[in-house]
């Protein structure tokens, strides 16, 4: 069943700006993962944050997790045209063995 929901659904920004997208979920989680998908391609894993973590960084990516609000945010700093893609959050509920993917968030970075 699908649980993660990204917001906003579509985002258009200028190159160099920061892009922020949010993901909300309904049940408790073991971890939350963010993936990127370039047009017509497979998904690429970006970052995984566990339920006992509040913030994680990877290069230009910053992910936060607020389990009390059941939400996560993905920040891409100093965006580049190559960041144009769809971004998905995926949650893993405790005791479950399958990820629940959100519907995706389309980001367009204008050069």
């Amino acid at each position, binding site marked *: 069943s*699908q649980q993660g929901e990204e917001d906003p659904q579509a985002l258009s920004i200028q190159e160099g700006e920061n892009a922020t997208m949010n993901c909300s979920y309904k049940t408790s989680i073991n971890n939350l993962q963010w*993936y990127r998908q370039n047009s017509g391609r*497979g998904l690429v894993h970006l970052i995984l944050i566990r339920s006992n973590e509040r913030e994680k960084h990877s290069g230009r990516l910053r992910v936060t997790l607020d389990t009390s609000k059941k939400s996560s945010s993905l920040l891409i700093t100093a965006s580049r045209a190559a960041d144009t893609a769809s971004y998905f959050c995926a949650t893993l509920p405790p005791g479950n063995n399958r*990820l629940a993917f959100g519907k995706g968030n389309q980001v367009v970075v204008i050069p």
Partner: protein
Amino acid sequence: DVKVTQSSRYLVKRTGEKVFLECVQDMDHENMFWYRQDPGLGLRLIYFSYDVKMKEKGDIPEGYSVSREKKERFSLILESASTNQTSMYLCASSSAGARDTQYFGPGTRLTVL
């Protein structure tokens, strides 16, 4: 680098045909997954396998079956293709079930006429 390959990038089949989609991973992962992706619906899990010859239904298994005879290969079978199975099919693998990172193949865009 983990590599997950899928047998075809694009496939066109006719209604009623039996369709095989193949997925191969080279990282000795125990777990493999088949998803379909449709606009507005995101990714939905069809089947997954946590060991050779083991399989478990996902959220939308109807009309599909799977086969895992070897650890590195996971096949998705459409017994009798229908137009509502036109979709992007994505295979993924992981070493620790869904708890860990999933590595995706490039996808197969299947059109059923």
